[in-house]
């Protein structure tokens, strides 16, 4: 594209929207300098990078609506502000929890109002089977017998036993 004022190639392109009207300007380096329009290619790299760094990262809400905590504050104190923080800062919260919990990725165990949920029970069953395999390979037969007995206890639990104690 040519410069609006001469035949040199345009290197600065401006779009100005004012009072509902749309106006485009295309200028060469010389005419851009005369018009006082900054040439982006002449800007130092560190200034451009600084602008990129200042742009907020698209990580969702900056503060938790439940308690006003920011992610920076949560990271600094290693404390969530309220139950909502777990979802508002979902990704960061997951990383924090997993690193604090030796890599564990989900709750297994009691849920409110009952013993262990079906899902938790299935998870526990899978885990016990894996551990049983390891115990057998390691010839830890006493441990294997204990795990087997726990597995059969788990399998024998009636689904309605959810409301009772495990």
């Amino acid at each position, binding site marked *: 594209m040519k410069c609006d004022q001469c035949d040199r190639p345009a290197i600065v392109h401006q779009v100005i929207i004012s009072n509902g009207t749309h106006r485009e300007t295309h200028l060469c380096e010389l005419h851009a300098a005369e018009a006082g329009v900054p040439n982006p290619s002449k800007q130092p790299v560190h200034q451009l990078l600084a602008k990129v760094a200042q742009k907020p990262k698209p990580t969702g809400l900056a503060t938790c609506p*439940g308690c006003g905590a920011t992610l920076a504050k949560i990271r600094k104190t290693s404390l*969530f502000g309220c*139950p909502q923080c777990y979802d508002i800062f979902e990704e960061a919260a997951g990383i924090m*929890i997993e690193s604090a*919990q030796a890599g*564990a990725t*989900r709750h297994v*165990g009691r849920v*409110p109002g009952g013993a262990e949920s079906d899902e938790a029970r299935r998870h526990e069953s899978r885990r016990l089977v894996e551990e049983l395999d390891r115990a057998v390979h390691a010839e830890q037969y006493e441990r294997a017998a204990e795990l087997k007995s726990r597995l059969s206890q788990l399998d024998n639990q009636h689904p309605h036993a959810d409301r009772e104690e*495990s």
Partner: protein
Amino acid sequence: MTDQERTPDTDAPDNDVVLTSRARIARNVAGIPFVHRADEVQRKQAIERVLPSLNPSTCSEETEWFDLESITALQRRVLFEKNLISRQHADLRGPRGVAVARDGNLSMMVNEEDHVRMHAIAPGLQPGKCFERVRQLDKSAEQKIEWAFHQRWGYQTACPTNSGTGVRFSAMLHLPALRLTRELEKVRQAAKDLHLAVRGYYGEGSESSGHFYQVSNQVTLGCSEQELLDRFMKTIVPGIVNYERSARQALLRRDQIAIEDRVQRDLAILRSARVIKVDEAMRRLSTIRLGVCLDLVQDVPLDRLNRLFQQIQSGQLQQTAARSLTPPESQAARATLLREQLAGQ
């Protein structure tokens, strides 16, 4: 609640090494910010939501409520020394309190780091007994309170180290022989590898005193409560207990007369001292406890010794004296108590 009510069971399992076991459950009330982000009104709301759950008609325990804002600093200190509240709970400001069961072996702290921390203690290695008690309290509480719960992360807590089950087991271990044989660092390293926390006698942030170390599970997520208990009860603690017992026997085999000399000297000092600071008293009581467990001392019951570790703390001395004591007065009162309790029979 009296100290007599808390007398440790002489037949408690593994009580030569394990002073006490504990289990605690952390919970938060749904819809209220965690304590450190909650304002005064919200903290009061948390208390108001929790208190009805302690009604004797529905609660598994009969408890007494202590409003930590309105009791004296000395009363808070005594509660801390009796392991019924944490140091943090004693020192915090704002609406907070603790419900204590009649026998003094169970408490529910309200507005500590989490809205609710239920905690039971028993002599020797009995984490299962403790857990059963706090679980019953949790069950009766949840009839009245909706706890903050996340489908994936379980019970929600302020600190990610407690998420999931919110359950932590701990044992207060007496490890004088491992300390004397300089093997303790190996225990610390092994504990770290097993994701265990090792703390001192006074809990979080404290150093060891009287060669007591509090060992607890750091992981609370990804295992059921039963699995956490099994690992703690059957694998983790027995390993350390057996290691300490072996170290005690090795000490005896190597130089029994030196151990006897040390034990008898410490006993003689505590039977005759007129003033004594708490650290020195803890250290000498620890050596005597080792002597009692190795049958080198016959005339001091283990239960009495175990109680003394608590009774010699400054807050409890002042409570007994029914007035505040200056440091020299405390040291004199401590020495008198020790002379009386350890007098030869």
